[in-house]
């Protein structure tokens, strides 16, 4: 099991011009570790992170899109795995942060904490699927995972580092959405 903050810090060292789509607890922790214009916070409609990511990936095939999904969130939108498997966006990397609980809603367990997300993604048609439970393995492979042709799926077996402060107004801020759109426009091919 990886500490989420250590996992995200390792990931951040490999993030440059990718768009990172993050949701709920992952979004809060990611924004603390790596605040940047190219972060896209998918909240308010739980489960849609992967769908937002697919839209971004379709619109900008020149740019890598990295989704930091939640386990409870993805369970609400499992069909998106099949949709993504059919569309086959080569530039989409989809991680699910699996801690087995609805952390943002009281840390109640998800219906089946033993669910094999990577197995589901594999059968849905993702090009490559991984499970990471140890930080050294994640650090060793993350560069390749981010660069290979997608859609790529990775289950990050993580545990909460510390209680998070859910500052939704800051994450939801319209200025963040405008800044992201402006940056995507500025860098459009």
């Amino acid at each position, binding site marked *: 099991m990886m500490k989420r903050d250590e996992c995200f810090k390792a990931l951040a060292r490999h993030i440059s011009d990718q768009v990172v789509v993050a949701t709920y607890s992952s979004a809060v922790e990611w924004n603390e570790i790596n605040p940047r214009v190219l972060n896209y916070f998918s909240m308010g*409609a739980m489960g*849609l992170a992967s769908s*937002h990511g697919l839209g*971004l990936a379709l619109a900008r095939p020149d740019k890598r899109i990295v989704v930091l999904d939640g386990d409870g969130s993805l369970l609400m939108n499992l*069909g998106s795995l099949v949709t993504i498997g059919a569309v086959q966006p080569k530039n989409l990397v989809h991680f699910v942060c699996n801690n087995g609980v609805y952390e943002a809603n009281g840390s109640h367990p998800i219906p089946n904490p033993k669910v094999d997300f990577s197995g589901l993604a594999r059968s849905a048609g993702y090009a490559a699927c991984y499970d990471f439970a140890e930080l050294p393995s994640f650090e060793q492979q993350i560069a390749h995972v981010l660069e290979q042709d997608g859609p790529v799926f990775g289950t990050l077996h993580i545990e909460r580092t510390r209680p998070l402060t859910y500052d939704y107004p800051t994450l*939801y801020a319209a200025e963040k959405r405008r800044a992201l759109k402006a940056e*995507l426009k500025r860098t459009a091919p």
Partner: protein
Amino acid sequence: MAAETDEGVSDDVSLSGGQIIAALKQAGVEYVLSVPDIHTSLGLLFPIASDKDLRLIRVCKEDECIGIASGLSYSDKRALILIQYTGFLDSLNAIRAVGVEYKQPICMMVGLLGHEAGKLPSESGRCGVRIIEPICDAMGIQHLLVSDDADIPKIAPAIEVAYAQSKPVTILIGRRPKA
């Protein structure tokens, strides 16, 4: 969402699927995101599926469309969401969050399966058909009814406004379009 199925509703009103598709192209739509609906299957979805100017993304559940359309909009790519009213109802929280509160240009074309000829949707005997417009009103979502060919010219301007002002719009298809 388990859609309602065909009940063989027919009438003599003319609503051209080809003209609707032309209106979508006029509005700059490149992507159509859809779960099949028997109401728009023959007149819209089959022609769209074979149209080389439009890219059809088939999704498993209608609320996926809301996220995909939002993601596309960040790079000024326009999408139309083609679903049945049952899927619209199933997606209300996503529409509320992404379209209404996030103020994203979410353009929905919603088939009113079972809408009776000669009646307004608000007069329908079907609960699902009857409540769509009041729900849009309550959510502050612009909506328009397309029931015959004379209504089709309203489609492209509505989509243009949605993208220009970054807000959702619901285009209700009151009759079964002809292929």
